[in-house]
């Protein structure tokens, strides 16, 4: 058997895995919980079919193939970012006060990371491949950044994370993190090591897909009722007392140490 057959079989296996994940997501009714993530899974399947058609019609090394590939990648990153935002929304929006505070911070963080990505892309604009990889790395970093920031909020406020959300978040975070490494490794040598760079990408995506299958393997848990919130004035009544005591406690502790 030649290597071409192996790579075709590999591609076919990965494609079936992606289609299977998308169908599983539809079957589990994930669209009602995480609409952007479900759309993302659908877009992954569309991406594979589109690129396969383009490659067949115009050749792998044509300009149309190059453009199609990167346009689809940009779309996929956009939807990954939206899926991560979706996860943060699902986890935190039931807690109105926390979500009101967290959402602008998430948006601000995303804006800062995107601007950072734009600046570093501009610095490497002399070389097209390098510029693309740098901008993609910045955007992937944005995806991981939003995810980690949202999860820190969940941990801080003891928000429970459903099992399926855990595995979906892990898949998204893992894939984006690996892309950051791979784009940095091959930033200046991607043209020479294109096949290795592609393998890195495919293997990490397949691993992420397995995480998503694990997430969707069992039925999704029943939706939890939104928590009953406290009366609006309770926070204002309790906060000053707690703050005062905590401050006092710290002062005394410091005095003891001195």
């Amino acid at each position, binding site marked *: 058997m030649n290597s071409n057959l192996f790579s075709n079989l590999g591609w076919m296996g990965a494609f079936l895995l992606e289609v299977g994940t998308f169908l599983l997501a539809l079957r589990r009714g994930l669209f009602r919980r995480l609409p952007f993530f479900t759309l993302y899974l659908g877009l992954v399947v569309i991406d594979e079919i589109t690129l396969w058609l383009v490659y067949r019609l115009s050749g792998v090394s044509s300009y149309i193939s190059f453009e199609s590939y990167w346009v689809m990648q940009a779309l996929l990153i956009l939807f990954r970012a939206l899926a991560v935002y979706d996860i943060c929304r699902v986890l935190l929006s039931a*807690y*109105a*006060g*926390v979500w*009101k*505070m967290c959402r602008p911070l998430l948006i601000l963080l995303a804006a800062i990371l995107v601007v950072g990505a734009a600046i570093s892309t501009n610095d490497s604009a002399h070389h097209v491949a390098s510029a693309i990889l740098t901008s993609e790395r910045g955007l992937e970093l944005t995806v*991981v950044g939003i*995810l*980690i920031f949202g*999860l*820190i909020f*969940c*941990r*801080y*406020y*003891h*928000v*429970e*994370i459903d099992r399926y959300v*855990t595995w979906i*978040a*892990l898949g998204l*975070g*893992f894939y984006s*993190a*690996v892309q*950051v*490494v791979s784009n*940095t*490794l091959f930033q200046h040598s991607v043209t020479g090591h294109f096949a290795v760079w592609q393998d890195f990408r495919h293997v990490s995506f397949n691993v992420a897909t397995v995480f998503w299958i694990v997430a969707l393997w069992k039925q999704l848990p029943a939706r939890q009722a939104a*928590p*009953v*919130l*406290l*009366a*609006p004035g*309770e*926070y204002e*009544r*309790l*906060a000053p*007392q*707690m*703050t005062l*005591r*905590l*401050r*006092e*406690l*710290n002062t*005394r*502790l*410091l*005095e*003891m*140490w001195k």
Partner: protein
Amino acid sequence: MTVFVAILVFLVILALLWLLFGSPTNETGSSLDALQIERLLPINCRHFPQITQMLKEEDRQFMRMRAPHHTERKWRAERRRILKQYLTGLAQDFARVQRLARLVSALSPEIRKGQELEWIWLGLQFHVSYRMVELKFALGRLSPDGLAELTGIIAGLADELEHRMSLITEYSPSHLRANMGN
């Protein structure tokens, strides 16, 4: 640069795993039903007055003057052990108050960014100061009187919170269900 990014990403993946699978923080969850006062209010401080009594300076002088050397040494070791437990209990109580504060924030429809940041800052300050006091304790230079003052503060806070929380939990779903069942 590449090595730096690789290390950074490795740390990011570790952080992700910890945030997603780390020790469960949802022993009580974030719901009104979770406001079980006995599980969240400081508990150790309730026993602190008795312990403070045991650690009085007069006792130390009495033991030094009257007890045989080996008995005094044993007594001192036991005293240190109690003091250590006392300190640990203090930290546990602080953590419970913090947990309660976060729960109140999570369940409030409006929270203030400044207030939340201040609580984070106070928590950090407490942990640093606590470590320093622990160090002082390890060096044998900590007086029980200082600890007694801290106990008073936490106990005061516990009383206030207990009163407020008992009012709040009257409206919790489980409480309402129980009342409807009666």
